[in-house]
């Protein structure tokens, strides 16, 4: 069930352009699946009217905590990133549909680009809890984009690319040598649209099953306003309600 919860900011870690916000609720949290997202109200920013959709980076049900990894892109996210410990942050959650859980024994590759690595943390954690060790392929423009890399690496075999070559193999995630060396049953992707399209194309050439997480501009987050649509084989679908995770077979890419 979706809820509106006033969280308190209890922890904050600065990564330059991105910030990790640790939010605590007084009440127990509703069930949340990896790949689902939240809508955060941005208070005190006159130019920010709508909530900001942010993926769920991590959940600690026992301590009633969620963690959001927020990249400062515009006025809204910049303001959100300036929140101080003790501030109240109003959140609607959980929204949308998460990644499909693989079967035991299936070989999974989680591909993240830039801030798109954010939801893969909670996903990888849940996979490990279910006894599935995923492989991770994380890419960024530069080394500094690969936030919490060591924490990600604990979940499974990890591969890295950077466009400037400051870490891992130089280039895009689609150019990494792992694609030649290994094969996977399921590929999960979150990142900028051109990157996801490139991975989806690669996966389709290899006849791989592939899911991507989209981030179209949205208003309501509930499937009411029909602003965030993506063109699919079933017509225009709301990314907020039918997604944000889609199997690439459904997309007209």
């Amino acid at each position, binding site marked *: 069930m979706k809820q509106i919860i006033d969280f308190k900011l209890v922890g904050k870690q600065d990564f330059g352009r991105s910030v990790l916000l640790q939010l605590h609720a007084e009440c127990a949290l509703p069930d949340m699946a990896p790949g689902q997202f939240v809508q955060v109200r941005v208070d005190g920013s006159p130019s920010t009217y709508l909530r900001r959709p942010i993926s769920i980076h991590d959940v600690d049900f026992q301590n009633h905590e969620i963690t959001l990894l927020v990249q400062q892109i515009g006025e809204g996210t910049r303001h959100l990133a300036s929140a101080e410990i003790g501030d109240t942050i109003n959140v609607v959650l959980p929204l949308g549909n998460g990644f499909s859980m693989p079967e035991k024994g299936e070989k999974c590759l989680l591909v993240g680009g830039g801030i798109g690595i954010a939801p893969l943390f909670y996903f990888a954690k849940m996979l490990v809890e279910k006894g599935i060790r995923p492989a991770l392929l994380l890419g960024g423009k530069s080394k500094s984009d690969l936030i919490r890399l060591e924490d990600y690496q604990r979940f499974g075999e990890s591969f890295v690319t950077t466009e400037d070559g400051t870490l891992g193999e130089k280039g895009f995630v689609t150019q990494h040598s792992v694609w030649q060396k290994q094969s996977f049953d399921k590929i999960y992707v979150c990142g900028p649209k051109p990157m996801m399209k490139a991975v989806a194309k690669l996966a389709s050439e290899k006849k791989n099953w592939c899911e991507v997480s989209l981030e179209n501009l949205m*208003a309501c987050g509930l499937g009411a306003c029909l602003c965030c649509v993506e063109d699919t084989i079933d017509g225009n679908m709301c990314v907020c309600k039918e997604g944000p995770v889609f199997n690439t077979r459904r997309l007209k890419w």
Partner: protein
Amino acid sequence: MTIDLGRGLVLRNPVMTASGTFGYGEEYTDFVDLAQLGGIIVKGTTLHPREGNPYPRMAETPSGMLNCVGLQNKGVQYFIDTIYPRIKDFDTNVLLNLSGSTLEDYVKGAEMVDALDKIPAIELNVSCPNVKQGGMAFGVTTTGISQVVSEVRKVYHKHLMVKLSPNVTNIAEIALAAEAAGADSVSLINTLMGMAIDAEQRKPKLSVITGGLSGACVKPVALRMVWQVAKAVKIPVVGLGGISNATDAVEFMLAGASAIEIGTANFIDPAVSAKVVWGINEYCERHGFHKTMDLIGALEV
């Protein structure tokens, strides 16, 4: 708190949710007990299915947003077969917002909706700014509105509410034409035509360049128009446009609205509609109004 809008449309309180901002009600049941609302007005529906406009369809603006969804919907028949059975037993008034691009489509759609027992009213959308001939062609002239309202009136026997466009020179004149053609009430305002540009890219932010502006920023314009229309017509006026809290709602009623609709504010606080019901009650108690309807037009000038 009961409000009687006439021809069988009785609201338990003056608060409804605006078309296109509340889905079919189902999207909000986690946040709002629909039985607390006067009514919900479901997504704009046309006789034939429409895919709507391409993405991007939304741009945020100071205290508001632009949209150019373009009436994406699966058509009246799909509504009747698939959606109506799911929502007909909601313990609130379920109104259908009916749109069209030809007179024949409006009439055929209205005829089909007339047969639905649990839909007590149509909100006739003659004011969608996002579709070529999306009804706004009818809604911006007195002859256009007279024509569509009188034709629909012939086949529709329940409460006929006509949603007016603010993109006109004299909205009172349009409202009077709707009244004369047989409307039971008018609701206003639909969105204001607007535009947003990405200066860095030198491109429009919306796929079809222009869109409809809604949200808190349109409230003063909406309030003024509701006041003008309420002075001009005898039928009830339903006010909407940027209502975000109970005080806003009370202002619309003081200006002459018999009921109100909450639109874009549902996106920011999905529970806002029920809070507004509570807040209007609280206002009435505080100011000694025994009936909510005593607020209607109680502006002291």
